[in-house]
């Protein structure tokens, strides 16, 4: 699904990583670990193509761009939860199925918040809105930068269950996290720094 060869990146005269090679197959979970400032986010941005200041090869064998959650959630604070999700799904040319939408929102405990502007939600709730796009838009690869921060225990349980399902369906996940990811599936790790 993804093959990375000899990837190197230097920022502000500081080498973040060099000659990094790995691959992600379908059904595989890759966790990027490393200290603060070791280049985890930069690596993920390089992978999805948002940052191009790297050397080496990033080769995707995918029909569509992977779904990505970065530090900035991509959730507009003056728009409601529903409007944000419609926009995010529209970007991927997905029309929202109301049944799936209702189920996802109730599982993420955002039910009743559909028409609330995201600016009035808590940090964790906003993160849930951003995470909903992974559950609503079918996509083979998920790239997530710190998806588990600001998420409570019940949300974590639900998310890891959905991650396992996604992996079983032949999808793959690349995520960076300081916590260990409680997903009971084969896990490979890339350590930085």
């Amino acid at each position, binding site marked *: 699904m993804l093959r990375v060869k000899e990837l190197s990146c230097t920022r502000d005269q500081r080498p973040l990583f060099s000659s990094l090679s790995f691959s992600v197959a379908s059904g595989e979970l890759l966790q990027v670990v490393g200290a603060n400032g070791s280049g985890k986010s930069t690596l993920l941005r390089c992978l999805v193509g948002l940052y191009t200041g790297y050397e080496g090869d990033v080769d995707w064998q995918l029909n569509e*761009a992977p779904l990505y959650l970065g530090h900035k959630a991509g959730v507009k604070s003056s728009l409601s939860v529903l409007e944000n999700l419609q926009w995010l799904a529209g970007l991927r040319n997905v029309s929202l199925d109301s049944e799936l939408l209702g189920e996802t929102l109730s599982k993420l405990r955002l039910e009743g918040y559909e028409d609330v502007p995201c600016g009035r939600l808590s940090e964790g709730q906003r993160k849930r809105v951003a995470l909903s796009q992974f559950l609503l838009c079918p996509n083979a690869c998920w790239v997530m930068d710190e998806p588990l921060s600001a998420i409570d225990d019940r949300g974590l349980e639900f998310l890891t269950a959905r991650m396992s399902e996604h992996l079983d369906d032949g999808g793959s996940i690349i995520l960076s996290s300081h916590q260990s990811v409680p997903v009971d599936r084969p896990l490979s790790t890339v350590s930085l720094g």
Partner: protein
Amino acid sequence: MRFFFASMTRDLRVHFRRPSEVLNPLVFFAVVISLFPLGIGPSPDQLSLVAPGIVWVAALLATLMSMDLLFRSDFDDGSLEQVVLSGQSLMVLTLAKVFAHWLIAGLPLVVLMPIVGLVLFLEVDGIWTLALSLLLVSPTLSLVGSIGAALTVGLPRGGLLVTILILPLYVPVLILATAMVQAALSGSDVSGYIYWLLAVLLLSLALAPLATSAALHLSVDE
């Protein structure tokens, strides 16, 4: 096309939920213009002479003030990243955003024009020509301004830089537009100026989205 309408309605929604950001440039426009009669005296002869220039300079500054509305919040909250990733056309996004921006920042200036013209003792002919020239030029201002807004969106205080980058590019339309109003006031034919302004509008409609989408790519790449 669907993406164009989706982006446009989204932007209009965002703007209408934050009316103060939209109204500030308009209030600025009205206040600047109403200061001139106080500054140079209320004599109708003097005021009507300098009116076209005053209105134009105020309109340019008001447009530049509102330029930050275009991409800033989308950049800050990560929406722009998601658009870049999704592979949707940034040119379509730019056109949709500029059109929404023109609806909320350009068109109201045209609507304010008759009132402003009366304040400055412009003749009725002059007011209509001024409104017409503003109608033709304001989309150009938004389009050209979008290039500067896209280039500076990643910088923390880009506002002043946009002004320095973009104001020189506004000079040709400023010359044409004020000349058009002067011509109308002296009773000559203005159709030549209309064609020129339309030509500039079409040129910027064709080229500005290209430059803006390239600039957006640069700004997101960090």
